[in-house]
């Protein structure tokens, strides 16, 4: 059963998990045998694009939600805080099947006219469920805001340990 669940999830996160499948299966089996939780860290390559719409805004903050496609398909929420005329910070949460992971990002902010763009790095530092051990830093984080309606397209890429 554990193998079946893992196999299903591995389809979602892409082919990079194939090599780790055996190791994780052994780890899950060992945990079940001893009765203590065990975790075998694996690395996934994240390459996701999210399409979000504004759910609310307050002050310099935009709150967005939508769906992500790519390595970890699922729902995505984003809180953007434009901290200065050319800097932005963000909180990002991706909820693929089986759990969620979240983190913080910071980067530059650029008003291009009809759109604004942001670009920086993301640190994943929290997870739940299957991604409770998720962590990673230096992930690429970029996106575009349609200034007429504040819809956002966000891209995240890099290596993540889960």
């Amino acid at each position, binding site marked *: 059963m554990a193998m079946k669940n893992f196999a299903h999830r591995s389809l979602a996160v892409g082919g990079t998990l194939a090599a780790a499948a055996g190791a994780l299966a052994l780890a899950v089996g060992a945990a079940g045998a001893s009765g203590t939780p065990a975790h075998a860290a694996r690395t996934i390559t994240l390459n996701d694009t999210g399409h979000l719409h504004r759910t609310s805004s307050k*002050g310099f903050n935009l709150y967005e939600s939508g769906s992500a496609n790519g390595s970890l398909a699922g729902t995505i929420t984003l809180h953007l805080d*434009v901290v*200065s*005329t*050319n800097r932005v910070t963000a909180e990002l949460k991706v909820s693929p099947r089986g759990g969620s992971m979240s983190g913080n990002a910071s980067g*530059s*902010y650029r008003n291009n*006219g009809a759109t604004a763009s942001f670009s920086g790095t993301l640190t994943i530092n929290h997870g739940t469920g299957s991604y409770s051990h998720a962590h990673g830093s230096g992930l690429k984080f970029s996106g575009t805001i349609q200034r007429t309606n*504040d819809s956002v397209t966000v891209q995240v890429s890099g290596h993540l340990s889960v």
Partner: protein
Amino acid sequence: MGERGDSMPNIKTLIVAVALLVCWCVPAAASATEEKATLHASFSPDRLGASTTIEFGFDVSTVEGLAPPPLSSINLHMPAGMNYTQTTLGLAICQPAALQEKGLAGCPANSRLGYGSAFVEVPFGTGAGHELPEVQALMGPPSKDSNIVVLFYANGTTPVYAQLVFRGELLPATGVFGSQLTTLVPPIPSVPNGPDVSILSVKATIGPNHLTYYKYRHGRRIPFHPIGIAVPERCPHGGFPFSAEFGFQDGSTTSTSTTVPCPPKRHR
């Protein structure tokens, strides 16, 4: 030894002469370049957190009442908390080259940020100046540091026979100020081989008042008013601070400040 003894009085004389010259020149130079400035600012409407049009203006003169030297830079500090996040001002970009070549016709309507007017004078003049009735503010391409760029365009007649384009860059600021619009003013020629033109005063707006943007829906061109920069949601004690620093071609500077009073509290 004799040579040294002979040269000493000459050196002392030279030092005294230089000192006298410095004493004579410095006050003269200072008095010739003693500029003063006043700054005006307001919000329309003036409501906390509301989309607004920022109205600002300045006057520059000398203590003697003469035309000031030509400006070389203007640095306008605006209060912290001004919200640029949700404004729809500047939905299009105006390219400086197109603006210079074709005037306003070279730039999209959705790149307009505001408008105003200016008074200018040649430095030797003592009159009330000549009005440049049309000063436009437009959204330029962002700087290499990703800062917002504001282009100021003036279509000059007498005594300025030129299309002027000034470039201002919106930079982050700290403390009571949240941003600063730093504008370098290029030399403004008057007549051939004549002195550059001095700016005496400017009135300008940045905001949606009197601006019309356009969007296309189902092939139809629909006018709308853009959303302005928002007034801060909290008013600091004493009002919203603005300040401006002016640099002049002769190297002198002056600064001034003002505040926009806190809006009256709204009763529900």
